[in-house]
C-alpha cells in the first residue's frame, strides 16, 4: 500500500456548491424522505424552498444541522422535534459563549 498524494480543489458548500436533496441525504447516510422531514420540522432551511424538492439547495449550515440531527436521532433515540430543540439550544449557547468571550478584556 502506498500513500498517494492528490492535488484537489475544494468547493465550498454554498452558493453554486450547495447540495441537492439526494446529495444531502447521502452525506448524512440517510434517505431523501428524512431530508424532507428535516425541512418540514424546520431543522434545516433550503434555498428555492417554494419549488419542487429536486430544486432545493442546501448550504453548509443546513449540512451541519442535518448531521447533528442525524446523530441525535440515532444515538439518543429521540424524535426530530426534540432534536430540533436541542440544535436550537446548542446554537444559542454557542452564540452567547462567543459574545461573552468577546466582552472579555484583552
Amino acid at each position, binding site marked *: *500500500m502506498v*500513500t*498517494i*498524494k*492528490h*492535488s*484537489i*480543489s*475544494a*468547493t*465550498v*458548500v*454554498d*452558493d453554486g*456548491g450547495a447540495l441537492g436533496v439526494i446529495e444531502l441525504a*447521502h*452525506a*448524512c*447516510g*440517510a434517505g431523501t424522505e428524512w431530508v424532507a422531514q428535516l425541512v418540514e420540522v424546520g431543522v434545516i432551511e433550503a434555498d428555492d424552498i417554494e419549488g419542487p424538492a429536486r430544486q432545493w439547495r442546501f448550504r*453548509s*449550515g443546513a*449540512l*451541519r444541522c442535518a*448531521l447533528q440531527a*442525524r*446523530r441525535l436521532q*440515532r*444515538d*439518543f433515540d429521540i424524535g426530530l422535534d426534540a432534536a430540533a430543540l436541542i440544535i436550537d*439550544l*446548542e446554537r444559542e*449557547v*454557542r452564540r452567547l*459563549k*462567543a459574545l461573552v*468571550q*468577546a466582552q472579555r478584556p*484583552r
Partner: protein
Amino acid sequence: MEFKDYYQALGLERTASEDEVRKAYRKLARKYHPDVSKEPDAETRMREVNEAYDVLRDKEKRTAYDALADRVARGGSAQGDFQPPPGWDEGFEFNYRPDSDGPADHAQFSEFFSSLFGQAQRRGAARQNFRARGEDHHAAIEISLEDALNGAEREITLRAMEIDAQGQAQVVPRTLHVKIPPGVGPGQFIRLAGQGMPGHGGEAAGDLFLEVRIAPHKLYRVEGRDLYMTLPVTPSEAALGGPIRAPTPGGAVVEVTVPANARNGLKLRLKGRGLPGKTPGDLYLLLDIVLPPADNDAVRQAYETLARASGSFDPRRHLGV
C-alpha cells in the same frame, strides 16, 4: 500511528453488551458535550467518544474492530502491509487551544475511523451484485484567519477503517493536498468530490466533506462572514472625534473617522472588509475608551480642569445618590 482503544474510550470491558455500550455512550455524551461540558478537553473527548461509539454500536464494525485489535495486540500492524514513510507518524490530533497565539502549523484532525452515519452496508459487499456509491467521509480542518481570507493549500492525512469483502478490517491512510478557496467562513463545509469511501460494485466513490474551523486570532473575532476588532481610543479622541488609523486583516491600514461624542462600544463598520465572497462580510471596529493614566502633574491637572468644565454632567444621576 496509535491504535485507538475504543473500549477504553467508553470505559467498557471487551465483553460489554450492546445495552452497556449505549448507556456508556449516552453518559459520556452528556459529560463531554462541548456546549455544556465543564471539562477542559471536552471537544477532543467528545470526538473520541463519538468515534468509539460509531464502531462499537454496530455489530459488524465491532467484530471487525475486535479482530483488528487482536491483530495489533499480537504485534501486527493496523495498516496491514502498509509501511508508513518516516516522519509520517506525527499524528493528526485536532487540538483546539483557545489561548494560543496562532493555529497549529499543519492541518490537524484525528480520524482513526471514518465518522460515518451510514446505512450503506459494507457487509453488502459479500452480497453479489451489491452496488452502491461509496459513503461520504467527514472530517474537520483548522485554518488561520489569514488562510481563510487568502485561501490556502493544506496537506491532510485521513485514516479510515475499511472492511473488505471477507470482513477483514484494515486501516487505510490517504494523504490529500487540498486547495482551500479564499473566503471560507467558520463552520462552512468544503467538499472534495470523490475523496470519500470507495464505491461498491463499481459505483463511484463518495465525497469528502471538511468542516472548516478558523483558529482564534489575536486581534479579530470572526462571526459568520463579519470580523470584529476592538479599537482603543482616548477619551479626547472619542469626545472630539476625528481620524484614527486602524489595521485591517488584509494588511492595509485604513483611516476611520470617529464621530464626536462617540460612546464606548460604538461600532464602526467597514463595509466589505470581512471575509471575501459573493456577499463579502464587514469589519466592525468596536470603540474601547481607554483612560490616559493620571501619573504625572500635567495629566492630573488636565483631568481636574475637565472635571471643573463638565461639572454639570452627572453619570450617577439616575442612581439618585
